[in-house]
Every structure is written in C-alpha cells, then in structure tokens.
C-alpha cells in the first residue's frame, strides 16, 4: 500500500501525541493527586484504602469521602480512595489494597457475596477492615472489625413516625432504583410505623424527566395523596417541580440531603429530611482504624455503629446549610 506523506505525518503526530498523553498520565498525578498522597515531613504515616461501590461523581459518596479525608488529615494518614459499582471489580480493588499492604481497609458491603472472599483474604493478611454504609447483615462473619452505617428499616420507621406526627394520611414512597434492597427496606420501615396508607411508586432514577413525569401523573390520578417521600435529595428537588406541575397540594419529605435540599427545606418546600450522616461514616471509619492501629481501640462492641437516622426539619436548616455548602453534610 502507498501512503501520502500527510497521512504519515499525521500518524507520527498522533503516535507522538499518544505517547505524550501517556507520559502526562504518569507525570501529572504526582502533583494533581497530591491531596491523597502522604505528607513526607510528618514521618511514617498510615495508609488506609477506602473502597466503595459508588458510581462516578455521586454527591453522596463525595461527602463520605470528604469525611474520610478530614479524618485522614487529622490523623496524618494517607487515604487511597477507589470505587467501582461492579461487585466483581470492587472485590479486585480490595485484592489490590492487600497487594499494596495498606494499614487498613474501609469497604462498603453493598454486594457482600461478591466481596466476601476478598475481604476474608484481607483479614487473613492481617489488615484491619471496617465496613461502612451497606452490609449491616453481612460484616460480622467476614472478620470485619466494625460497621458504621444506618439501618434502613430503622430510618424508614423514624420517617413513618414523623409522617404520622405531621398528620399525613395518604403517602407515596418513590423508589428510584427498582429492586434496591435498601430502598425497599426504607419504604417497609415507613409502612411499619405510619398509621395512614402508603403506596410505592417506581421511577427510573437515571432519567430525571421520567422521575418528574411519573410523579406528576401519579399525583394527577390519585389527588388525595398528601405527602410524597423520595429516597434521595436530587429526586426531592425534581419532586418539588412535579408536585407543582400536577397542581397538587402534597407535601414533601426525603431521605439523604444535599445543599439544594437544605435550601428547599429552609424555604418550606421540604418538610423534613432523614439524614444518615454520610460524612460521619467516612470520618468514623478512618478515625477508628487509626485508633485501632495506634491504641488498639474499636467502637461498636461487635454491633453496628449507627450514624443515622437524624431527622432534620426547617428549624435545623439554617445551621445545617453552611455545612451542606461545604460538601460535608
């Protein structure tokens, strides 16, 4: 085959650019990723790996991570954060932490069966492991030292009691991830303590226009609904518009918070927020690993350490708002 010179030049340039990119990829993170790297001046530090099942750019996990980062900074530890929503690949990240001989591992057990073998291997390698957020039923047999999280049923029960107290009669529980066990448990918990009637509504959480239109059409077909409960702050924000579109007078409550939701609560658009304090999950897990390595302490006494539910109402909004803006609530 013959090649025109420009093709050859373009190819050479491309190859060169590719190599430069590769080199840039090796050079840059030393500076960019410096936030995660240990500080050299403070001598030997602990290296703690945190491995979650978060998808990329999820605000909830940013808060968990900043909690862990704050504790790492205070304890002069280095935090190695990684995440993969795929159970098998999350397990491989745990294997890698063992290869790296870290001083401690913080892991979420959203898919405990996928992670069991890797977590057991880490424990067998003498690395202390604590779990956070998900896996309340699964952590003990794996040799995990402590679990920091919220019991979703308990959180649901708290929300149900609050709804009863606020005089709600007919509510809809909006599930944005069909089949998510934690979501079902929240709605089950509400049903347990709520004295009125509850319906579930399944929406497609990755498609906000679907969330909005489904909630609107539900409120139009069942006008006597007086409370909408969403299971995540971004869905609450969508629900505010959906309720307005439907011309409904239904009020709103949500699980988990973010800065927007706190503002909406301040403005009276959200009645209350059930918070599991994700910051506390990251912070406590890392801090307790540090205590374990430096002083042999561990919280919980073999039982789950609950970080929630904390029920926040309009009167809390003012004080919470500035923390939420910092990305720590």
């Amino acid at each position, binding site marked *: 085959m013959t090649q025109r010179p420009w093709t050859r030049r373009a190819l050479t340039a491309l190859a060169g650019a590719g190599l430069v990119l590769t080199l840039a990829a090796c050079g840059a993170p030393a500076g960019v990723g410096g936030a995660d790297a240990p500080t050299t001046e403070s001598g030997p530090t602990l290296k703690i790996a945190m491995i979650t099942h978060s998808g990329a750019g999820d605000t909830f996990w940013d808060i968990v991570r900043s909690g862990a980062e704050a504790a790492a900074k205070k304890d002069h530890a280095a935090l190695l954060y990684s995440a993969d929503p795929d159970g098998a690949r999350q397990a*491989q990240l745990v294997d890698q932490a063992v290869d790296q001989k870290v001083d401690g591992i913080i892991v979420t057990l959203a898919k405990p069966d996928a992670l069991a073998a890797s977590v057991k291997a880490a424990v067998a390698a003498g690395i202390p492991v604590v779990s956070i957020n998900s896996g309340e039923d699964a952590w003990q047999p794996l040799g995990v030292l402590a679990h920091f999280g919220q019991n979703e049923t308990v959180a649901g029960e708290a929300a149900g009691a609050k709804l009863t107290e606020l005089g709600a009669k007919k509510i809809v529980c909006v599930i944005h991830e069909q089949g998510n066990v934690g979501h079902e448990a929240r709605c089950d918990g509400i049903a347990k303590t709520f004295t009125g009637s509850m319906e579930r509504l399944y929406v497609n959480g990755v498609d906000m226009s679907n969330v909005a239109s489904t909630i609107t059409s539900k409120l139009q077909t069942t006008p006597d609904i007086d409370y909408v409960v969403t299971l995540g702050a971004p869905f609450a924000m969508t629900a505010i518009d959906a309720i307005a579109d439907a011309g409904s007078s239904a009020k709103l409550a949500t699980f988990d918070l973010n800065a927007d939701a706190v503002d909406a609560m301040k403005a009276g658009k959200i009645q209350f927020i059930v918070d599991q304090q994700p910051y506390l999950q990251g912070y406590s897990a890392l801090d307790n690993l540090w205590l374990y390595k430096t002083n042999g302490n561990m919280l919980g006494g073999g039982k789950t350490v609950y970080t929630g539910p904390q029920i926040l109402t309009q009167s809390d909004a003012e004080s919470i708002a500035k923390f939420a803006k910092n990305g720590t609530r």
Partner: protein
Amino acid sequence: MSTATPTDERIHSRGLFERLFVRPEIGALAAAAVLFAVFASVSPVFTQPASLATILYGASTVGIMAVGVSLLMIGGEVDLSAGVAVTTSALTAALIAYWFGGNIWWGVGLSLVSALAVGALNGWLLTRTRLSSFIVTLASFFMLTGLNLGVTRMITGGVATPSIERAPGYELGRAIFASDVPVFGVNIKITVFYWIALVIIATWILRRTRVGNWIFASGGAPQAARAVGVPVRATKIGLYIGVGFCAWLLAMHQLFAFKTVQSGEGIGNEFLYIIAAVVGGCLMTGGYGSAIGAAIGALIYGMALKGVVYAEWSPDWLKFFLGAMLLAATVFNVYLQRRAARGRAR
C-alpha cells in the same frame, strides 16, 4: 525494491522489522511493554508477584470474552449484547438451581445450552434479516437486560439470586471455575489459564484451519467469499455461538466465585471486549486481526486499570488515564503496522 536483477516481489524475503510488524498483535505488544515499564517505574507494588496475579486476573475477565469478540470482529460483526449475556448466563444457572433445587450442574449445563442458543439466535437474526449487527445485537442487548431483571424478580422477588453455596455440586464447580492455582508460591486465578487456553485454540483455528480462512474471508470480503463457496452465514452464526460460549465460561466463574448474581450487572462491559480487540489490532471493518492481539489488548486494559490504583494516582482521573493509554496504545500499534506495511509494499 529496485535491484539490478528484477526479482518477483512475491518471493522477496522480508526484513525482520516488517516481518514482525505486519502481524496485528506486535504493535500492541510493544505498547503493552511500554505501559508495563511506565507502571513498574512509578510503583514498586506493581511488579510484585501477587500484584501481577491480580492484574492477570482482571485482564482475564475481559480477555476471555475478548477471544470470542475478536474472532467475531475479524468475521466482520460486533456483539453489543456480549456484556449482559454474561450476566444472563450466570442468572440462568443460578435461577435454575434455585427453582428446581437440584444439583447446580443442571443449571450449569442448561446455562451453556441457553448461552449457545442466544448466540445462535443473534447470528440467525443477523443473517436472516441482513440488518447490521449493531442493530440486531443492540436489540438483544436491551431484551437480555430486561429479561435479566424481569425474570429474576419474577422468580426470586429480589434483584439478586439467592446464594448457591449450599447447592449440591457447588464445591466441584468452584474447583473448576473459580479456584486458585499456586504457581511458584503465588495464587493465580484459574480464569487466567482458561483465557490462555482459549487464545491458543482461537489462534489455531484462525491460522491452521479452513474455518479460520472462512472467518477472515467472511469479514474481509463477504460477497467474494460467498462466490467462492465459503459458508458465510454458517461462519457468522458459529462466531456468535463462540461469543456465547465465552460468555458462559466467564459467567460460570462469576457464579461460583461470588455465589450470587446481581441481575443489573454486565451493562457496558461489551465495550471493554471490543476495546480489547481493537487495541489488539482487530479492524472495526473486519477481515483483519488476531486472538493474541485481543489478549494483549485485554492485558493493556487490565494493566492500565490496576496500575492507576497501584501507582496511587487520584481515582477521579482513572477513566481519563484509561482512555489516554488506550488511545496511545492503539495509535502506536497502527503506526508500527503502517510503517511495516509500507516497507513491504515498496
């Protein structure tokens, strides 16, 4: 090649460089070597035997599928349902074991049958409708995704299958599909050996058998191939069945390694398989490529993915590094091949 005595260009002996670099996989191998050197220099953990075993394992879970997918791409087609087909296979085995309560091996066997059937159906629909494989397998991608969730919820009421740990036959399955093989004191997952075996078989088929010629011909010039009597339709159906087999093998590993199957997983993985094949030198247009190249592509992907973690780089940038490295590896590969090909054609 202007020499004093004109020689037949068909019998001229080629230099070492061009002999090496006209092979689809050598450029990828060079890129892999560069990548290995980069990570080895920035991370001492990267070259530890245990880390290499982890990298190989990660690569093998992409590589096993990349074998089937690369053959399919040489045959001129793609399979967008390959990612969820793995989950479908694992679910089939787990759900059959759960529903009938018998030996897990019934599930394993029937899952193989269904995986091959899905592959055959893809191929049959493709050759029957003469639509592009993009459309046909996109449709089966959506249908399998829906079936995975729908059937799992219908049978178990949840989104994941119950654990198969107590099913009779589980221990044997675990030994076959999900055990560790100690090599010089390092535990290497058995999938790595399946991967190597599949690559050897696929390479033998491509290079040494008539079927291999059919695959190249079906992908490179289907009309001409049909005219000289190549069974193009059967070849393509066979290639989809091959992808089905690879999906089943990987699915059985996941089933026995993790005991439960999440019905929503596998989406998006089809692109990893295609990426591995393309990085390894397979052409998107068919007719060119190799199974060894796809294996090296999977290795590059595995090294990049794990290397970023071992190097303790910020994970926020992981996907960017991954993309940049894949681009660099592919461009490097293409560049070397073109150079070698130019040398030959002159």
